[in-house]
Every structure is written in C-alpha cells, then in structure tokens.
C-alpha cells in the first residue's frame, strides 16, 4: 500500500460535504466513508476532521443533530444545509474545472 496522501487544505471540506450530501453521517462514519470511497488512498486525519466539521458548521454550510447510530449509540449526525448544498455545487464545479485543467496540463505538456 502506498503512503496515504495528505489532503490539500480545503479539499477536506469539499469531501466532507460531498460525503454527507446523500445522507446525514456522524464524524467517524464520514472518515470511514472517505477512506472507503478513495480505496484507502485518502486517509482522513482525525485531528483535522472535527475542526473541519466545526468550521463548516460555523460557516453555516452544515448543521448537526443528535441521533442514534448503527450500533444504537447516541451520535452526532452532520447534514448539509440549503446554503451548504448550493455551496457544494459551486465547489464541485470549481473542482471539476481545476482537476480537468491540471490533468490537461499533465497530459499535454
């Protein structure tokens, strides 16, 4: 297994928002989901996950409620707010443009 890639600042926010876009998730599940979907390439640093969640919550993109987890424990579930959904779309479009541009350069240069 190659060394897990450190996430670029700001990318984590996008990943979190994308991850909880489909359904509300608690912090641990968000980290697991990102690892799983990236086939273990992206390792979410636990120390940056919660501050990122706090930051997003403070900015009003996401909000959290207490709910019951899959193993019947009380857990804090994060979900997108309406402005958060809109923000995700914008960020996603930005990301698509950026990554397309980068791969274009990488391929042709």
């Amino acid at each position, binding site marked *: 297994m190659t060394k897990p890639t450190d996430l670029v600042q700001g990318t984590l926010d996008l990943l979190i928002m994308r991850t909880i876009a489909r359904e509300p998730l608690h*912090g641990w599940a968000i980290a697991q989901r990102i690892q799983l979907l990236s086939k273990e390439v992206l390792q979410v640093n*636990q*120390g940056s996950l919660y501050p990122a969640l*706090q930051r997003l919550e403070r900015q*009003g993109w996401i909000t959290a409620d207490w709910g019951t987890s899959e193993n019947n424990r009380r857990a*804090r579930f994060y979900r997108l707010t309406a402005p958060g959904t809109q923000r995700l779309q914008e960020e996603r479009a930005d990301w698509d443009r950026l990554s397309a541009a980068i791969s274009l350069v990488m391929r042709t240069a």
Partner: protein
Amino acid sequence: MRLLYRIIPQLRAIFRGRRVDADVADEIQFHIDRETDANTSRGMPFDEARRVARLTVGSVDDAMETARDQRPAAALRQIIRDLRFGIRLLAKSPAFAAAAVTVVALGIGAVTAIFSAVYGVMLQPLPFREPERLISIWTKAPTLTLTRMYPSSADVRDWRQGSHQLQDIALIRTTANFNLVGNGDAERIQGARFSPNVLAVLGVTPALGRDFRSDEDMDGHDRVVILSDGLWHRRFGGDSSILGHSIQLNGAPYTVIGVMPPSFQYPTRDFQAWVPLVLDPRERDRQVNQNYLAVGRLRANATVAQAQRELDVIATRLAMEHPATNRDRGVIAEPMLASAIRDVQPALVALLAASSCLLVIACLNLSNLLAARAAARSGELALRLALGASRQRLVAQAIAEVTPVLALGGMIGVAAAVFLVRAFVAAAPPNMPRLESISVSTPVILVSLAVLVVTGLLASVIPAMHAWRADFTTMSKDGGRSSTSGRRRADARRIGVAVQIAFAVPLLVGASLLVRSAIKLADVDLGFRRDRVATFHLAIPRSKYPSDPEVAAFYDRLLQAIAGLPGVEKAGMVNRLPLAGNQTMSISVEKASGERVDISSIDSRPATPGYFAAMGIALRSGRSFDARDDETGVPVAIVDDRLSTATWPGADAVGKRVQRFDGVWCTVIGVVAHIRANSVDVDPRPQVYWSHHQVTQDRVVLVVRTSGDARALIDPVGQAIKAIDPEQPVYDVRTMDTVVQRSLVQRRLTMMLIVAFGVIALILAAVGIYGVVAYGVTQRWREFGIRVALGATRSEVTRLVLREGITMALTGSVAGLVVAAALQELMSSLVFGIGALDVASLAAGPLALFAVAALASCIPAWRASAVDPAVTLRE
C-alpha cells in the same frame, strides 16, 4: 438564510457553553468507542484496540480545543475569565487598586460634573420650538462705547416691518413687579410684559387656557394674566377653575387666561406671571425710550448672518430718518442661545478646559501606575510566554485587568459628579442662565462613558506593550534590571510624568490667576460700607398710590417709622442698590466755561436724604438732600466725585448745573464718593442722584444701617412696614454683605473649582514623580552601591536622585508654560486687576511643581543615600 445558520450555533454556544462542551465530549467519546469496535473487529484484543483508538483521538482532542478557542463564544468566556483574573489581582494588591480607582474617579468625576454644566447650559437646545431659528436682537452705539443695549419698541417695530428674513419679532419688558394680594400674605411677584406674539414666536403654548389675543396689548383690554406653573400650584392649589377668574395684582383685577407648563421659564426661572405689554403712545415717535428684550424668529432657511445684514440696512435707514435717536446706532443679531449664555460662557469653557487637563493628568497617572505594575510582573509574563501563552492572550489580559479599575472608578466618578452637580446648582450664581437644565443627563453619561473607554485604552497602551514585548531570555536573566528595554520603559514613565506636569502647570497658573484676581477684587474700594446694613426691596402699587407725591410721602412715612426702631442708626432709600446692575440715563452738564456737554450714559438714581449715610457713601462736599428738596423746591442733584473731577476739574461742583434727562436744569448741592454701581469688577460710569421727591420711582430699596448685627434688623423692619401698610410686600431682603458676596458668586465658584482641580493635579503630579523616582532608585540600587564603594559621597548620590525628579519638573514646566500661554485667551475675561499673562501667576505654577517635585524626590533620595555598598554588592 446562511446568516441564520451561522448565528444559531454561535448563540447556542454562548448561552449554553457548558452544554456545548458536554456535547463535544460525548461526540469524542462516541468516536473512541466506534474506533475501538472497528479495531476489535479487525482482531485486536480489546485493551489494545482501546489504546490505539485513544491514540488517534488524542490529536482529535487537541484539535477540538483549538477549534473551540476560535469560536466567539469561547472568546467571550475567555474575556470573563480574564476579568475574573483581573479582579482577583486587584483584590490582592488593594493599595494599587485604591490608587488606580481614585485616579480614574477623580478624572471622570471632574469631567462629568463640568460637562453636565456645559451640556445643560451651552449645548442643550433651548426648550422652544425649532430653537435654532430664534435670535436675540440688540442695539449698539459703538461711538459711545456702548456695545450692547436694549432696543426701543419703535426700533423693533421698524425692524419687524422692514425685515424679510425674520418671520416675526416679539417684545418683552422684564420689569414688572406685581403685588399679589389675597390667598395668603401679600407677595411680590416678578412678572414680565409680553407683546401678544411672544409665545407664538417662541413656539410654546399654555398648558391650560389660552395665549394673549392680538388686541390685548391695547389699554383697557390688558387686564389678563398668564401664570407660571409654580405660582399656580403655590398660590392657587393647581386648581384649573382659576381660569376666567380674576386675581388682584397691584390692587387691580386681572383675569387669569392661562397657565404655562413647568418647562416654561422665560426670561428666567424667577418669572411667575406674564401680562400683555401696553406701549406708551410716546414711544411710537421715539419721544421716550424703554428697555426691551427683542426675540425674533427667522424664516425657514434664513440665517443669522442674512438677518444681520438686513437689519444693518434698516438701521442705516433709521439713522437717516431719525438722527436724534438713531444716529450711529447699530444692530446685533445673534442666536438666542448665545445671548442667553454670554455671561457664563467664558467661565464654563475655562472650567471645561481645566477638567480636561485634570483628565489627561489622571489618564497618564493611571498609565504610569499600570506600567509600573506591568514592569513588576514582567518576569511572570515572560514565564507564561515561555509556557506557551500567545502574545495576543497576554495583551488581551493586560487590557482586561484594567477594565475593573475603569468600571469601578467610572462609577464612583459619575456618582461623585451627581453629588457635585447638585452642590453646584445649589451654589450657582443668581444670574446663572439655564440652571434648571443642568443635570447628569443621559447624553452626559454617554459622553463620560466614551471618555472612560478612551482613557482606559490610552492608559493600557504601555502595559499592553509590555505584555507584547515580554521576552523570556532577557527577563529570566536579570529581571530586566539593566536591559535596554527596561531603560526605555523608565524613559516612557518619565515622559509620562513630565506630560502630567505640563498639564498641571496651566491648571495651577489658572488657579493662581483667579486667586490673585479674587484678592484684587477684595481690595476694590466699593465706595460704600458693606457691614451692618440690611436692605429691603419694595414695589409700590400705583393703584394705591397713583401720584408721585403720594409715593414719596409713603416713603417718608416708612422712613420715619423705621428711624425710630431700636438699633437703627440711619435709614434711607434708593431705587437701585449698588452692584445691582445699570440703570442709565443721559444728562448734560454745564462746564465752568458755560459750555454744555452731553453725557450719554450715567448711572442715575433717585435717593432719600438719609441714603448716603445709611449706605456709608462719603459726602465729599456740599450737603445731602433734605426737606427743602421737595416737589416745590429748586431742582437739585448730587454728583459723584468722578463726574465732578471730570467736568469741573479743580473746582467745587457745588452750585454748578446739570440738565436732567427730562430737560430740567438742576443745581448741584453735593458731591459724594463714587461707588461700584454695576458690579465689583466692572465700573463703567459716573453717578448722579436726584431727590426722591423730584424724581420718584415706584420701585425702591430701603437701606438701614444698624449699630449691631444687620440680620437682627430684618424682622423688626418687616413688621414696621406691615404696621404701616399690611398689603405692602417686601422682597429680596439681604444684608449688604450678602449682596456683595452674591455679586461675586460666579467668580468665587469658578475660582474654587479651578483651585480644587489644581490641587488635585498637584497631588497626582507628586504621586507620579514619587513613583518614578522611587522606582528608579530600586533599579539603580546596585549602581549606587558601586558609586559609594568607588568614593561617591552620600550627598552626591542624593543629588543624583533629586536631579531626576527636578529634571522631570523642569521639562514638564517648560512645556506647561507654553500650554498656559496658549490658553491665556480663555482666562482673559476671568481675571481682574491683572493681565492674563501675569508674571507672578505664571511663576507660581512651576514653582509649586518644583517644590512638590523636590519633596516627592526627597524620600527616595534619602533611601538612596542610605545605600550600604557592603550589602548591595553582595546581593
């Protein structure tokens, strides 16, 4: 929308701080449990799984901590923690706390109290509708050096007709004395006569009843009166059925048509009744002249300057049309507020400047106190920095520590100001305008709060800089004793003290100017003797004594009765007391050469034969009035020595002739000493007296000289008057001593306040100098030890320390003298008998500060001289 999402969690965090923390702990605990589960499911033993989970989460905990610190709620909690810490620190050093709080309280108290007066009198709008459109109009005769005169009704009428900038002009005659009879004792009421448009021009309406009608200024329709709220409550029980009823004023029935609201105190708070103004027909063609106040209302958008220009044009036209009365007469139009406060403005501005100086001194003093503490704690700051505190945190805490001092000091200061303002209002001069609007009002408190915050921020700059510059390496090495930063800090404190002294100098110079003025004023030869004299004002109702001879005969009857009272040495009457302001006339005098000279403005007083002896006015030559000088006798006059010397130099004035204001030539029968008729400090005119039988006025002051205590005469004289006419009220009963004191109240009050500010400034400066010098001595302890060890004498060490204090006093004083010189304009109208750049006063300020600086440096110097090198060098 997004804002709402952002605000809600923050609000929740602020109000439910503990809950949020508990939530965070729960969330982390859940994370650990879930991680442990995952690890065990991968085959780890439970303990190992738990340990690994905890390890990953350890970093989570740290991160949460940082995240929490960035939240505003966290910042608020941090501030509260800092404040608590600040209060604990203060409680631990009560001496410092008491000093700092006292300094803040002094500064804020002085500024709040003085600003209350300045705001109430000078800044608060007049209690009329659109007061900025109201102007006062005066006339002036510059060629006669009369800079401000009451206009005549004819002039006002012509201005009113000719002006387009003015919507209307109202006329007020302020001399209306009423004897109110019925419903209790006979009482003299101060009233005013209003042209029917006064209330409309001012924009006020009666609280009850109606305004004057436009036809009520005609003779026969004028028996109507509007009462003040105070009089209505005091005499008529606040009963609204008084409307339409008549009351007895000066023996004539007046119908009450209205009651004004309590806020209406015009022209001053002394006025209690208003009646229509009926003009003497002779005033119309300028045959006779009366004194009026004229108040105009500008048209919307018109300015005072435009009105002034327009009135100037009209005045020029009137001067051509009526050269006899209007030649060389100008007009002054000025905002009504400016007119109202003209007399007190210089004193108030000077007091505001003085209290501001005191505030600056207090602020710097506080700053030095805080800096000294910060210096003492630099080791602690360095240690905390080394342990990981951020510089921002240290600065925030330095500021938070000042806050309790400011809060407590500010509260005590404002409370003291409330008390001071009450005392000020009680002690205020009788002529003080707008006294009723002086209070520690909301705007005043807001300004004080702003001043407090600025003071606090300025005073915290140095300690905050200390916190910012705290440096572990230098601090831990030598406690900052000999480092350059330590020296720089000491320099900053020395500069702080020097600036305090610079601001104390103008205060002391001002105080000294006023004290010297007061001494000069006490030395003024008043021309009369103020001791053992009681005075009683009487206003004689013409309804009872219609003709002049009847009035004069009544005076004679009163005097006869009073002369017989035990203890009475001499009794007389004059129509206006000395120091009671002007009552001027124009007369002509016949010089020895036979040439006639007009004297346009002279103090003119009818007096009875006994007046001069009763008032203690010396008779220089000739005789006083006597029984010969009655209605049928030869018209006579008594002149003062000033007029006599000016007109008939080297000759006796007795036998010379003067022409009375009504054209009658009178023979001078006596010359008396010149007196201060206007006030103690202003003495513009000579004086002439007429026999009370030949010129009779119905307002008179009874002057009684006794062999004992003047106050003991007040009751018997009052009873004697009552025995002759029980309906005759007596008012403004005062000893002559009180009259003199009252005329100087404003000066005395200003002087006392500025002297008090000066003394406080001196004490603060002394404390400041002592603090810095004493601190310097502890800093240089080892240096002194070395000096003594190397052969310096004790006196040399003492001199070294003294020099530090004196240097601060010297630099501060030089700067202060510059400030004082710049402020001398403020003082110029407040000084008496000396110039505002009085050398003695300019020297007194710095000298006092030198003495204080030397004294304050003495104790540390003495301590320094006691240094024992054997002990110090071993430390």
